[in-house]
């Protein structure tokens, strides 16, 4: 079973993603901000992380930087999901080593397809 970590501070967004990926057969982990993500990653190695950028305490960019330092997570795919749509924001995200950057609002269908694709790439 593939593991997916969903990090967002918007409860209603989490609800949809949780529902969709559970249905698609993933084991879903939830985090409400960057620090919860890093806490979870101490014990879990998800296959993919959906990371919001604008989160309390530790933002998405910083979280990714931390993730990249963790050798255990070398194979974990990270996708930014953000309402920040500026070119500079996207570039920054990809430069930090994200596998994709998807702007909000997105299609759930396309998002799941993109996750599948990434996981099959390896």
């Amino acid at each position, binding site marked *: 079973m593939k593991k997916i970590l969903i990090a967002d501070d*918007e409860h*209603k967004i989490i609800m949809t*993603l949780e*529902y969709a990926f559970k249905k698609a057969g993933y084991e879903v982990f939830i985090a409400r901000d960057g620090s919860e993500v890093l806490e979870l990653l101490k014990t879990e190695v998800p296959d993919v992380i959906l990371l919001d950028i*604008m989160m*309390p305490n530790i933002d998405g960019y910083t979280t990714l930087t931390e993730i990249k330092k963790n050798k255990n997570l070398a194979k974990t795919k990270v996708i930014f999901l953000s309402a920040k749509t500026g070119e500079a924001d996207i570039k920054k995200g990809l430069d930090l080593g994200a596998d994709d950057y998807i702007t909000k*609002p*997105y*299609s*759930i269908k396309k998002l799941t397809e993109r996750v599948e694709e990434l996981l099959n790439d390896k």
Partner: protein
Amino acid sequence: MNNPYVYALSLAVYCSAWTYYGSIGVAANQGLEYMAIYIGPIIIIPAWIYINTKIIRISRVNKISSIADFISLRYGNSRSLSALIALVCMFAIIPYIGLQIKAISETFHLVTETGQSDNIFFDSATYVVLIIALFSSYYGTKYVDASEKRLGIISAVAVESFLKLIFFVILGIFVVYGVFNGFEDIYTQASKLPDFAAKNSFNGLEGSFNWFLMSMLSMSAIFLLPRQFHTAIIENRKEKHIKTAIWLFPLYLLIFNFFVFPIAWGGKILFFGQDVNPELYSILIPQKFGNIFISTLVFFGGLSACISMIIISSISLSIMLSNNIIIPYGWLDEFKSKTETDNTKSIVNIRKVSIFLLIISGFIFYKYLILGKSLYSIGLVSFVLIAQLGPSFFGAIFWRRGTYAGSVTGIIVGVLICFFGLIFPSFSESFLQSSLYQNEFFNFFKIPYLSPIAQIFFWSMFANSALFTIISANTVSNYRERNYAELYVDIDDYIQNHENAYIWKGTANISDIQKILVQFLGVKKTEQALKIFNLKYKITNDSDTADSRFIKFSENLLSGRIGTASAKILIEGVTKEDKISLPEVLKILEESKENISLNKQLSEQSHQLIKLSNELQNVNENLLEKDQQKDEFLDSVAHELRTPITAIRATSEILLDDEDMPPELKKDFLENIISESDRLSEIINDILYLDKLETGTISLNIKENNIIQTFRKALKPLLHLFDQRHLHHSEVHLLENDIFEYDEPRMIQVFQNILGNALKFTNDQGMIQTKFQEKDDQLKISIFNTGKTIPEEDLEFIFDKFYQSKNQNLRKPVGSGLGLAICKKIMVAQKGDIEVKNKEIGVTFEIFLPITNNESVQNADDQNIKEI
């Protein structure tokens, strides 16, 4: 010693023996008429601030050293006009000097109780005069440049002016309180005298005309008397000294005049029925009471008045005699062949001899012509003669059209009228009886109610002014007259570079002019002067061609030594001048004026441009900043909108695709869609609302409300949320009065926002406390909640729009992110404020409102009334 008081006191050289003795005589014989001579100056002196400033500037830039130079330069720098003016001054002033000598001599004999001798060589007064003449000619010619300031002499005159006033006041106090028992005593005793009533009035309308004319006469004298022109204009060191003079000098005259009338009446009482010259009351009264101390003081006071007058008058006359008559009409050729040392010596000697001769002529005049005349009548004749310079003088500074022909004709005719009307009749009884004077033509002009002097003053001035105006208007001035007319009338425009305003065209060599300068200034001073000239006009080349500026500059260098007219003649001798047409003069002047004002305008404009460009840069920076802020705002708005849309879109997509969703979950999802839609419209509403608050399109409805009730209205809908989370809310009231002025719906909005915020951040079972109090004349409402504090670095940004979305360290509250920004805007719009502070165990929002209750409005009104 270079101070305004010396300047103001030196002007009191106006008060000569005439004031000291003559006024008392007039007051005794004619009554109030004596005052006219002082009222005139007192009335016109305030105008000095304008008129004398102008004259001083003109004189300074043209190196003018006498009134003859001043008038003649304006009418084309005419040698003949300057000589005519010098002559008029001499005719007017020599008898006046004689009058001073008469006063010295008479009082000298009176105080020493000696008799006058008919043989002048046995008369001790003769030797007193000789000493004064020698002293004056020695000290009065210290500088060869007559436009130089004579600080020593002027300071001495100032000291003398001070002493003569003090001595006169001592005499006044002695007469009023020593001889009599105060002013009342003099009044009571004098009122019994037969002519008391007549001499204490203006004698009706006829007398008033006399009085008016006498005031006009003295008004012109204060400008035109050579000694006044000398002290007020030539010896002025700073223009601002005039400011002191215009109050100090009139005050001086008033103090002097205060005791004249009591002394005159005191004398009349004491010497009633005796044949005593009232002009000598001031010495006779103390003598009668054996007070030799006071009679001697008075003698010395009078003596200093006389000496000051003699010295200053003879210096100013000698400058005119040498610079306007002797040098231009006889000595110029002599100078050309001599060296500087010889020439300087000759000039100084001419002046020395002039001063000596002038004083001696005054003495002779006194001895042989005016022995029996009163001081007053001679003084007035002098005034009338000097007044003939008035039309040309005032025309020079105020009227561009005045011409040489008008000026000369006016002065000559005016002086002739004085001679035939005043001077001949007073010396020759037979002249009065002659058929010429008695015929009907003259009878036509007689004005029976005017005194002879007032009549002649009137007619001479009438003829003089009329001829000056009419002839000037009908003659064309030459270019030089027109040049100076512009320079005089508009001196303020040319003061900075007056040499540029001098118009001259022709061929001239600097070396030729330099030779002449060397003959008067010497090699060293000439070189110095040329260096200054080159520096001033930034001339670097060695061209030998002299331009108009150099011609004027050289004329100025010579003017002080030999007079303006002679300077012109000398320079003309070595240059070849082309005639310039009048229109050309005006064109050049206009250009030079335009250049000056253009320069001024340009520098002003460039200043303004710099200022403007700075302002533009600021505005631009502001705009850029605003633009960036707007971009950021739009970004934030987009971000804030995308978040609920993302939720709505994802939820709808799931609902659409997944038909077997459990009903419970389906319901949750649908509710999410509704609440996120509400959130969207809330954001949009808040953005629009904030925009309205910012642009001021929302009008506040500020009126009296009860703040506690308003707060409760805001609190009520939130109470169930408090209960749900087991939060404790309390209120603390410290107000005496609950009524304040504000917009109630907006305040409810603010309260709900802050309370809502508090609700979100208060830990469960925490507490919220609201405190109402008055502090520093403001209503202060503090809303405190326990819970997490706000990071210090975030405190100042918390009221910014979408603050929460910019700073990820703050947990997002549910809402648009605009709530606190809206609160801030609302409070500021009501002239209040809102602040946030961290406390040990939580956060406090402090809301401020100004107190504008009726009581304070009332107080403000009271204060206004008091101020009114």
